[in-house]
């Protein structure tokens, strides 16, 4: 009697949200998968099933391959900048937890993570600007010739990596700080008694113990790196002023195929590839974590 009553409440309470969930999440995800197997152009009337044809075409499409390479470079670039930097900064902030400036350190490192992408990217666009930007002015002060940062395909990828790392750092530091707070103190005490220096304790105790956290932060950073869009949109406008064309990224390529070329099925197959990348990364994370538990 009580159980049926509870069951009725649970279902009634959950139903509206579940309906919304099905409508704005599950259905469009299903649609993405379905469309990716169809030639679904807005302009043509029949939208036939074509199997994996879209995917075959994608891997011969220079624009897509270019976007895939750029996005991968950006995602891994951000990873390799962010993780070591975050680990060191978090260690230093943790060491100074009792300092009266601890709040200041945390806040300043974290602010770039919460500010809106577009205004932040605009600030960096000015910094990288070839004529007006402070970066070239600083370089020239040291006798290094200024670069046309945002008009060179390689340099602008570096600029996007810098911008994304600047934003990702705060999140990584925060998660590492939680990790540091949960490390067992006794180990450090023992190591200290054995005469291990601070640097030794960092490399031989903290870094290995924080491995699950490193894994988690790495996957999160990589996934958000693969979804990069606004940063490229703002930073990499080409000389005609068209946004994001100089550094093609996956999301940009996908949206152009869908809304400029009206090839929705084709764009959906790009989305499926993005999904596969994310799934693989997530599975790798779970796999590595499980391996650790079993040992």
């Amino acid at each position, binding site marked *: 009697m009580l159980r049926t009553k509870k069951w009725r409440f649970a279902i009634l309470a959950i139903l509206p949200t579940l309906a919304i969930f099905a409508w704005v999440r599950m259905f469009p995800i299903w649609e993405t998968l379905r469309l990716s197997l169809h030639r679904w152009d807005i302009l043509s009337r029949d939208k036939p099933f074509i199997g994996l044809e879209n995917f075959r075409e994608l891997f011969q499409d220079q624009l897509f391959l270019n976007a895939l390479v750029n996005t991968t470079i950006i995602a891994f670039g951000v990873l390799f900048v962010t993780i070591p930097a975050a680990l060191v900064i978090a260690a230093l902030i943790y060491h100074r937890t009792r300092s009266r400036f601890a709040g200041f350190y945390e*806040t300043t490192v974290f602010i770039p993570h919460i500010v809106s992408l577009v205004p932040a990217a605009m600030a960096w666009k000015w910094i990288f600007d070839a004529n007006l930007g402070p970066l070239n002015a600083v370089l020239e002060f040291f006798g290094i010739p200024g670069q046309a940062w945002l008009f060179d395909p390689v340099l602008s990828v570096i600029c996007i990596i810098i911008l994304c790392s600047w934003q990702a750092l705060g999140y990584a530091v*925060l998660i590492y700080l939680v990790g540091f707070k949960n490390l067992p103190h006794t180990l450090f005490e023992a190591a200290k008694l054995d005469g291990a220096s601070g640097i030794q304790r960092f490399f031989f105790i903290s870094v290995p113990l924080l491995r699950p956290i490193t894994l988690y932060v790495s996957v999160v950073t990589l996934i958000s790196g693969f979804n990069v869009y606004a940063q490229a949109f703002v930073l990499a406008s080409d000389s005609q002023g068209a946004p994001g064309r100089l550094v093609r990224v996956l999301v940009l390529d996908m949206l152009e195929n869908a*809304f400029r070329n009206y090839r929705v099925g084709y764009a959906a197959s790009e989305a499926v590839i993005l999904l596969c990348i994310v799934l693989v990364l997530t599975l790798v994370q779970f796999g590595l974590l499980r391996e650790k538990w079993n040992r």
Partner: protein
Amino acid sequence: MSDADQKPAAETVPGLGMTARARLTNLTIDIVLFVFGILMVLPLVLLVANAFKTPQEMVAWPPTIIPADPTLDNFRSVLGETPLLRWIWTSLRFAFLSMVAIVITSSIVGYVLAKFQFRTLEVIFILILATAIVPFEVYMIPLYFQAQSLGILNSIWGLLLGYLVMSFGIFLIRQNVKHSIPDELLEAARIDGAGELWIFARIVLPLLRGPLGALAVLSFFQAWTAFAWPIIVTTSRDAYTIEVGLALFQTGFTVDLGRLSAAAAAVLVPSVTIFVILRRNFVQGIASTGVKE
């Protein structure tokens, strides 16, 4: 960098003075962190400073942090050229409605999934868990066509369609209910004859004030900073959110740095201020994303 992981409590044990060397290390670390912190916010500080500068001062080297001759001309001309305030207003309404929707849906579903043991619910939880890892960018194109067929493109409802639920919010609440609300409390209320709805509203919700606050802040900022979805859903200038408006405004040819900075500063200053005030909620919410189970 040395002594990086030293336990912080060790240095404050009463009666034990720090050695000169430890003091020096701490000072060095403080200086490093201080400089680093300043460098992190410097781009934003300079941007805000630029907003108040005259064209002559803008190109001066080295750049000044506090403008020598502050002017509001940049703001005046941006407000004259763009519906900046309208964009901000749209973003505010969008973020607020999204926050309300996410807090309501997450608290109900999170509570039910945490405290009611039924096979059906487990299946639902797994479904939610499975869709949680799919990035928004993957399914936003079909979602766009759904919005189109409802005729809500270029409206606040179209924006909202993508931001009604948040899987992470459901997990956050579920986790908190599991760990902080004992079953005995709920059972006692049931024995006293309390209805399920009353229990949820009068017992569960008040106990969830902390996590709900964190979720509210997170979901508000998530919508406030949204970019990919608003840029495809809104195509008319009057319907833009502030992010879209700014991004398209800055691609214009004739726009100079002063006006760009003013427009960006008008968005940055309020959101950074809100962040600094609500820092605790933020940190609690974001930190909990990393420590599941």
